């Protein structure tokens, strides 16, 4: 099987599954599950075969549209970057599918759920394989749609309906920029083919800062960067496996992937903006996470924060590295971002699935203060979750540590200010994760659900274990170069690891922030039924809460006070002024004229004779040459 064919198969298998489910298996949830699972397995296997195989940059494209000078073809671009993400999507996707089988067992609508997952897999794979910005955009929109579908799974619940709507619209706002940038690209270069663009830029084409920034808008929306981050916490209304797959591991990472795909278009000014966007998002989200009570919301803000890390990493850009006598300019930002993306995909998916396991066990209780004592009742979940937490907060030796180190080092090397902020974020990360971990798993059970919690079946635990393993080994160089045969070197090689004094510094910093955060949380938060900090420092707590809500409030105010009022005003003008005053008024004037003309028929023959006189007068005037035209 040729790689192109295989790739097409991988891409289309979930679409076929989705079609089969949508048109035939709507009322057969069991069969639908099987079909989706089969597709996920095929995708996973195919992805791994492709990613670990030798084939790269095979071309396969098909033209979809041609109008005048504008042509659009779908093609495959398969390099190490794509391979890496492909592997992640395949593995995490499979894990989530398997997990979902257990998690959604009770749900009567799970056919729709699996159909949605299949569409998502198709769309995400499309992003991975996209060889042009246009194709990227197409699948970009489609993942937005599948995300909408899946967040809206429990559609009778108003929050779910609202959240899905919000997610799509906010993403659309981001896509507004993406689409504009895309169109700009098409107009300037005559193509959006990534390779062609790269060639053009290499050839010295000048790129305005606006172009990459417009494209970055898309990433801001999808990767939930400030100020378009508001949808992601709300998106936790979706089923938990969805959160794991889409809103933690893959879809939100697509923004980072997009940035890496277009890194050659970047100019310093644009990178500066990107850098600060990521940095601020990282800090902001970490601060928000501290006050959350909902287990998924904590993880959501954590995801935001980590995405901020990645964006910041990308924004830090390339780095000049001494390599023997030679100085190389390597795309360190791309490497660091993608590296973190990879490890984050593993441990965040792990954390979310763990959370899902907890929620499932607690009968859909999500408030961490109503949990507690789950460590004993859910040993597997506890263990794996702990690994995930540790990986996230950067425990040396775990995957997260390596990737975070790479970013911190890069920040240190390029921008001390950013380094400081990211370090502070790391402290907060350790703080809120330990808070979460301790309140959820330790102490005594504080709720009905927590008391009767028990481990789910192997469908739930299996994926946890697999992901936990990956969360451990995913950071090691040998894992990539050895186990995976160096197939991702194109990406991994550009990860810059600190050496020498820098190494020590970064290591120390990491450990220090880890310890500071974890210790603070351990001390401040006993495993209790209420928020200790909220009690002790209500003002600080309120401040953080306000910070978190500020964006929603601002947007709410905009929608209610500006957008809706403008709409009402324009509608008023339309109905009263245009349709009423002008159109009806004109009709009224004509009607009045008509009434007037009609009223001239008074019925009196004398009066009619006056008309004749009028006519005679006019005719006389014509005949005498007084009137002429």
């Amino acid at each position, binding site marked *: 099987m040729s790689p192109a064919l295989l790739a097409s198969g991988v891409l289309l298998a979930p679409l076929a599954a989705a079609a089969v489910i*949508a048109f035939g298996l*709507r009322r057969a949830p069991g069969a639908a599950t099987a079909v989706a699972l089969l597709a996920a397995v095929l995708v996973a296997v195919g992805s791994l075969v492709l990613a670990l195989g030798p084939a790269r940059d095979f071309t396969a494209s098909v*033209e*979809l*549209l*041609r*109008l*005048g*000078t*504008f042509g*659009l073809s779908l093609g495959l671009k398969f390099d190490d970057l794509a391979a890496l993400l492909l592997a992640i999507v395949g593995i995490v996707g499979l894990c989530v599918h398997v997990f979902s089988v257990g998690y959604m067992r009770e749900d009567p609508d799970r056919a729709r759920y699996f159909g949605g997952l299949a569409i998502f897999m198709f769309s995400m794979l499309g992003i991975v394989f996209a060889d042009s910005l*246009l194709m990227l*955009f*197409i*699948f970009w*929109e*489609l993942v937005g*749609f599948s995300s*909408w579908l899946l967040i*809206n799974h429990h*559609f*009778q*619940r*108003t929050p*779910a*309906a*609202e959240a*899905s*709507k919000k997610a*799509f*619209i906010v993403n*659309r*706002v981001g*896509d*507004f920029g993406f*689409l*504009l940038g895309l*169109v*700009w690209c*098409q*107009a300037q270069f005559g193509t959006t083919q990534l390779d062609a663009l790269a060639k053009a830029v290499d050839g010295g084409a000048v790129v305005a800062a606006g172009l990459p920034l417009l494209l970055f808008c898309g990433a801001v929306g999808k990767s939930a960067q400030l100020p378009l981050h508001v949808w992601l916490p709300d998106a936790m209304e979706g089923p938990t496996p969805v959160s794991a797959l889409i809103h933690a591991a893959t879809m939100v990472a697509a923004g980072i992937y997009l940035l890496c795909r277009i890194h050659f278009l970047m100019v310093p000014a644009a990178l500066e903006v990107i850098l600060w966007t990521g940095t601020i998002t990282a800090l902001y989200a970490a601060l928000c996470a501290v006050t959350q009570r909902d287990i998924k919301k904590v993880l959501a803000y954590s995801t935001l924060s980590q995405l901020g890390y990645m964006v910041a990493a990308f924004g830090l850009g390339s780095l000049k590295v001494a390599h023997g006598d030679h100085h190389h300019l390597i795309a360190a930002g791309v490497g660091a971002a993608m590296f973190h993306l990879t490890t984050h995909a593993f441990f965040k998916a792990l954390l979310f699935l763990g959370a899902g396991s907890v929620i499932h066990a607690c009968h859909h209780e999500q408030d961490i203060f109503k949990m507690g004592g789950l460590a004993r009742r859910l040993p597997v979940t506890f263990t794996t979750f702990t690994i995930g937490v540790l990986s996230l907060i950067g425990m040396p030796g775990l995957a997260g540590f390596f990737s975070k180190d790479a970013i911190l080092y890069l920040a240190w090397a390029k921008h001390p200010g950013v380094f400081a902020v990211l370090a502070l974020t790391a402290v907060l990360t350790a703080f809120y994760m330990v808070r979460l971990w301790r309140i959820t798993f330790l102490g005594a059970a504080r709720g009905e659900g927590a008391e009767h919690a028990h481990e789910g079946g192997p469908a739930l635990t299996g994926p946890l274990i697999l992901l936990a393993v990956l969360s451990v080994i995913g950071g090691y160089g040998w894992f990539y170069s050895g186990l995976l045969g160096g197939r991702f070197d194109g990406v991994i090689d550009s990860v810059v690891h600190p050496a020498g004094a820098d190494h020590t510094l970064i290591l120390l910093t990491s450990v220090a922030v880890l310890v500071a955060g974890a210790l603070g949380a351990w001390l401040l938060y006993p495993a209790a039924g209420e928020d200790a900090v909220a009690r002790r420092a209500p003002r600080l707590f309120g401040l953080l809460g306000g910070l978190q809500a500020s964006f929603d409030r601002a947007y709410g105010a905009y929608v209610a006070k500006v*957008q*809706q009022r*403008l*709409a*009402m005003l*324009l*509608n008023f003008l*339309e109905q009263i002024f*245009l*349709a009423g005053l002008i*159109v009806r008024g004109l*009709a009224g004037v004509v009607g009045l004229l008509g009434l007037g003309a009609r009223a001239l028929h008074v019925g009196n023959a004398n009066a009619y004779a006056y008309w004749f006189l009028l006519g005679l007068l006019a005719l006389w005037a014509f005949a005498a040459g007084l009137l002429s035209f």
Partner: protein
Amino acid sequence: MRTLPFDPLLAAIAFPLASALVIASGLPKRWSVRLAYVAFAVPLLLALHTWWHFDASPKVAGYAFLTQYSTGLDAVGISLKLGLNGIAMPLFLLAGLVGFAAGLYALQSQAERLKLYLLLLLVMQGGLMGVFASVDVLFLYFFHELALIPTFIMVGVWGGRDRTYAAMKLTIYLTLGAMLSLAGLIAIYARSGANSFDLMALREHLARFPLDQALQGNLFGLLLVGLGVLVSLFPLHTWAPLGYGAAPSSNAMLHAGVLKKFGLYTLIQVAVPLLPAGHAAWASPLAWLAVIGNVLIIGFVTLAQRDLKQMIGYSSVMHMGYAFLGIATGTAVGVGGAVFLMVAHGLSVALLFLLATSVHHRTQTFALDEMGGLARPAPVLAAFLVAATFAGIGLPGFANFWGELAVFVALWQFSPAVTAVAVAGVVISAIYGLRALAQVCFGPATPRMEEIASRHPPVDLRWSERVPAVVLLTALLALGFWPRAISDPIHAALAAPATAAAAPSAR
């Protein structure tokens, strides 16, 4: 290629009209219904035939299936010349598809005075097929009016709220637009000196002897205003939401879906190629008017609508703005995008009107505030509604996306500022689309819905309603996944300079 033993275009026009005449002459209801099934299917099949054989057909100046019928007025330059070029063919297909769907939907509607309803719908259908098959400019107009008039009676007899006012307003507005465009067409005819309404002859003639610049500007302006009324160009649009709000489903489907495209079609086929200087003079004002008026202002007005059908009506006005933008660019990309968008919008808005009526059957209301949670009792209906909404929003995978995309691409070269505003409209359409969707289908059922459900337990979309919806949705998806099905002919028609060769053989 195999050819039919008769002229497919004439047959597609004549069959529905003849069926209407037969029904009018007192066919019993049972037979009328059966005849109507056939009469709606025949144009679709013929349209599919022409689509399938389009590439392989011999063409004269881009026109395939060319035939000419004498009206006896050849000396005045009026003859019934039928043919399809790459721009007309997709719209011909659209007319067949939407007509079929609207017909099927009407047949299951159990409307009062069903025979009259079907008769009028068949007249519309025949006229619509004629609009896009006519190469003669006068017959283009003629068939448009033929299709337009049944609307008056349909809105008035079977319409909803405000039907009398709506029917009157709609008819007067559209007649005004039609008369102005007729004046423009006559002016072109008279001033060109070609002594012919034949579009091919006019093109050839005007390519050699273009009209002077000022005149072109005036004529284009006249046509723009006249056709603008028909296509609801801001601020000449107020008839549209009112009319569509009141129109019965099948009529709204055909009118908003197909008939409205006449104005754009005429601009593209007649005004732009014949009056290039006029187009150049008007491009910029048109673009700004369309983007500020249709896209932005009407976008916001749509946001404020609380009535499902009105909202669809306004959204249709808004989307026409994109088509105008494509035309304003004047490039093959933009105009082609506009044509694509016309087809896509026709399908999607017809689907939306169909579904809105089906929603109304189940909720007894169009008021969005009163609805909620319809997805639970009627999941298939909700699924169709989701698909139609997302098609309207311009999701890739549906046909609309390609049209909008091409328009945007063309527009950037025209003016990045206009493009930015136009793209912002996409966000607005997502907001109102999803808001309405959520209000109709999702969330818990409102008290009013529960009350209605207790009286008439809502059922899911019946098969009789499903089939027309599937027809439309399939077309939307097919074009979404394989846009080349119609984009290649459009491309060919726009890329090739219009040079007519030998006269076609007259029958």
